[in-house]
């Protein structure tokens, strides 16, 4: 653990000079013959920003881990855990510092494998093994099918594995190759980052990993996917607008669906994992605005979008790390993270409750904490995108804006649910006890919480740090304009800090006034405040079981969004004069898992079983178990059945509707496939000629 802490500190120190000013790229070539290249390490602004993120979070996790592992694992092999953490740390630093494709991939693979062993640390439990396998397989598919081909094409074009050679080579590629490269990067790095629908490993791996590892997975490993995507964008010339819009749509889907699934979860850590999907969506939203700005030739817009994304990378590492560590303290204290079993922890572990509240307020993007600062920059970039009419004349950023607002509202609902149910009210399950949180865990969480508050209250000091990382990303644009755009990033933050200071002062002032008023009223009446039971409509003995549950709290929103979520509800309602046991179960199975991966892998399993039967003669293969067979029909199946039955019913309106829908789809296809933009006269002409040709 000491090693991890030292490495973290060193990475912060190394990142320092690049954040304060732009120094030239420093590189170290180790003449160590790799099979296909040399071990070339380099530091630039982008690397420095990610090193800073790694350093802050890893240092706090290093302080936190020993106390946590003592409490949870007892006599588990702590040495192995420490060694693996050090290895993970080393591979993370290698990934961001590598300036050579082969070295990058070596670091990438090492990071994935060490994280696998850490996720599977409690491997005696079957669900841990399952989560770890899903993690390993999903990530390897992402790497093998998408990241490797991506580097193969790039290095093949460049004739070298050096990163510095990839940029000039990418400039010579034609448009369709660039789009293919971007899509490969999006799929490969998106799997690591947890963008929907490649996110399924996150909710599987996060809840089963030891909590410090979950914090690192969510705060840092996922960010390596973002780093990969950003690094790819530094090599590619400005991409067609279509790519930016594609990324924007993917990030909006990730964001909204991620937070909706989070709302439906019953386990704190699983819920936090889905929130990572949401926040990666927010980061990707910033990147997509950056890309749209680049393809439209607006350096100021591009810089603002990328800066928002980078700021959110660090901010998310801070508050999500804090939330995971705090959830770990809940697990450490009570032995469970099942939301419905907990309650009233604010009374028993007040410090931890405060830490979770700071994290929850930050992740909802509320002022005066750090989440607000980066979301504010991303909002500003989206507004700027609407103003300049980039991305389908401003419609795409407008969609991003409204989705970001919706995500904010849903995240607030979700964290009101978690904090309200887990920490407030009364304990729901009498068996669950709560041990106090060890001091070292409190210190680690305190570090992250102070980070969240400092960034939130003094944004003017924080925003300039992101300038050199952002300039790496917009280097392909005219340098004079870039210089101006980069300088303009932190300008409004100084203005932002004024109202935030006002807010902090007003809170302090109101607390003081309230004290004075209380003292005055007490002197007036000579009575102190009274403490009684909670009002329950004159019922004198309210019990903990009468509290509102987390599922009830979330249910009105989940019902409102059922068209997106397809929640599964099993209700045995009380019936008769003397009702016997009744029960209610609600789940929201992941739509990507059910409708995309299960049929895909189920089909593959059946195919392999057939091949095996053929080759071995008669031996029947293992039957793939598919959750969709459980009887509750999924959205796709319901939709198809509905369509078939509507067609069978034979009413003329339904058939007309089908014809109209088909026509609309054809027109959309026509508009997309024509090389010019939708609104240009050329595309109208081509539609017209197509129509006249059909006429006899």
């Amino acid at each position: 653990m000491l090693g991890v802490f030292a490495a973290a500190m060193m990475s912060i120190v190394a990142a320092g000079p690049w954040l304060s000013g732009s120094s030239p790229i420093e590189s170290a070539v180790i003449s160590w013959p790799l099979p296909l290249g040399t071990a070339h390490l380099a530091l630039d602004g982008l690397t420095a920003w990610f090193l800073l993120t790694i350093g802050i979070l890893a240092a706090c996790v290093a302080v936190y881990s020993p106390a946590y592992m003592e409490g949870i694992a007892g006599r588990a092999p702590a040495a192995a855990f420490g060694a693996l953490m050090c290895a993970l740390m080393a591979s993370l630093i290698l990934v961001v510092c590598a300036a050579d494709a082969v070295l990058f991939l070596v670091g990438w693979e090492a990071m994935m494998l060490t994280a696998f062993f850490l996720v599977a640390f409690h491997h005696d439990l079957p669900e841990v093994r399952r989560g770890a396998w899903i993690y390993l397989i999903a990530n390897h598919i992402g790497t093998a099918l998408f990241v490797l081909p991506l580097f193969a094409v790039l290095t093949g074009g460049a004739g070298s594995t050096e990163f510095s050679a990839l940029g000039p080579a990418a400039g010579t590629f034609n448009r369709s190759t660039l789009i293919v490269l971007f899509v490969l990067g999006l799929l490969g790095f998106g799997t690591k980052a947890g963008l929907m629908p490649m996110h399924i490993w996150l909710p599987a791996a996060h809840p089963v990993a030891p909590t410090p590892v979950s914090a690192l997975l969510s705060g840092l490993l996922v960010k390596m996917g973002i780093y990969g995507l950003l690094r790819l964008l530094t090599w590619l010339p400005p991409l067609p607008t279509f790519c930016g819009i594609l990324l924007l749509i993917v990030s909006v889907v990730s964001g909204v669906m991620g937070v909706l699934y989070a709302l439906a979860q019953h386990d704190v850590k699983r819920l936090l994992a889905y929130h990572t999907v949401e926040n990666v969506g927010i980061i990707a939203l910033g990147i997509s605005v950056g890309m749209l700005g680049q393809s439209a030739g607006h350096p100021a817009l591009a810089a603002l979008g990328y800066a928002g994304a980078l700021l959110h990378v660090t901010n998310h590492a801070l508050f999500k790390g804090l939330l995971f560590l705090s959830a770990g303290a809940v697990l450490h204290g009570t032995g469970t993270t099942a939301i419905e079993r907990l309650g009233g922890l604010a009374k028993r572990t007040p410090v931890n409750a405060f830490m979770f509240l700071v994290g929850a307020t930050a992740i909802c993007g509320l002022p005066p904490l750090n989440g607000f600062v980066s979301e504010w920059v991303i909002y500003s970039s989206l507004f700027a995108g609407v103003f300049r009419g980039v991305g389908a004349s401003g419609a795409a950023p407008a969609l991003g804006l409204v989705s970001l607002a919706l995500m904010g509202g849903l995240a607030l609902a979700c964290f009101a649910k978690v904090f309200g149910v887990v920490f407030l009210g009364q304990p729901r399950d009498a068996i669950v006890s709560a041990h106090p949180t060890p001091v070292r865990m409190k210190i680690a969480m305190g570090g992250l919480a102070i980070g969240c508050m400092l960034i939130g209250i003094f944004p003017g000091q924080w925003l300039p740090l992101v300038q050199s990382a952002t300039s790496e990303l917009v280097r392909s644009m005219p340098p004079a304009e870039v210089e101006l755009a980069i300088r303009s990033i932190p300008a409004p933050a100084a203005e932002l800090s004024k109202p935030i200071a006002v807010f902090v002062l007003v809170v302090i002032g109101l607390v003081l006034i309230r004290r004075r008023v209380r003292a005055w009223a007490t002197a007036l009446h000579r009575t102190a405040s009274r403490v009684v039971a909670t009002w329950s409509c004159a019922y004198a003995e309210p019990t903990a079981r009468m509290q509102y549950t987390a599922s009830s709290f979330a249910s009105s929103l989940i019902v409102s969004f059922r068209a997106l979520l397809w929640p599964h509800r099993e209700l045995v309602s009380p019936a008769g004069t003397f009702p016997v046991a009744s029960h209610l179960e609600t789940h929201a199975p992941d739509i990507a898992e059910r409708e995309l991966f299960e049929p895909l892998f189920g089909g593959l399993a059946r195919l392999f079983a057939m091949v095996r039967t053929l080759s071995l003669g008669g031996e029947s293969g293992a039957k793939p178990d598919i959750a969709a067979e459980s009887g509750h029909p999924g959205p796709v199946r319901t939709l198809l059945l509905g369509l078939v039955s509507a067609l069978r019913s034979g009413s003329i309106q339904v058939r007309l509707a089908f014809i109209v829908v088909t026509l609309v789809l054809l027109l959309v296809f026509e508009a997309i496939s024509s090389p010019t933009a939708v609104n240009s006269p050329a595309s109208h002409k081509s539609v017209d000629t197509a129509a006249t040709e059909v006429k006899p």
Partner: protein
Amino acid sequence: MSILRAVLAVPEAIVLLALPPLLLSVIAKTKAKFSGRVGPPWLQPYFDLYKLIQKTPVYSRTTTWVFRTGPIVNLAALLTAATLIPVLSSDSLLGFSGDIILVAYLFALGRMFTVLAAMDTGSSFEGMGASREVTFGTMSEPALFLSFVVLAVATKSLQLSQMMGSGLAAEWQVAAPALVLVVGALLIVLLAETCRVPVDDPATHLELTMIHEVMALDHSGPEFAVITYAAALKFVLLGSILLHTAIPHPPSLYFLGPMLRMVELAALACLVGIIESMTARLRLNRVPMLLAGATVLSSIAVVLVLTGRMA
């Protein structure tokens, strides 16, 4: 900011801080008029606040510091928002480019802490109210942001005082259809966010049907005074956003502008009173439809503005 502006800000701030309870009175008087009653005295809300402040508070034994902090954070968030929103005059004290986002999130911060304070009691009624509050809050947020997009695109600004000042008056000449839709959406958001009929009924006496009132069931004494005052302040702030959008004053009005704005706020309170007297509260599962309606109105407005700009 000029010295004159700073000097003028003092009386404006005093009026702004003193005004909110009076508007509650206007609503109450209007409703009384409609039901043929005289209604409480004009200054009744101030008497109520004074009475509450000196009362000895009663706390539930389940509650923690969150319960006592909730109302204070909510009020502080609204007071901070009041420095950014143009209320009486057409500019704001601390306005800056991008302040609309801060204003929306300050409202959200207030909601978060109100909801947490309610959940701190462990009461199922308050949990219910909290759940409804976050549900409806989530649904009104997209409508509010889409309205902001329309105003921002129309005036090319991200600063509330510029988005609603005289720049908007010129826009009414060219983009009136979109702005009418925005005003409609903002009115629905106002009714939902300030918990008025048809979304919530502040006069109801049944815990099961309440939203805002039920969250304050266990709050008493000074805390309840803070909550009541904050609700009135929120009405003034959201009402000002609505009025500055609907009726942008030309700068030539000088000192008459703020006076006129006060009259308009009273008229808005009257309008809310009339709506409360004429309509019944919606069934709770119909409220999302209303808020979705507001979102649709503002989306159409966005489409109108964006296409209008392209042409």
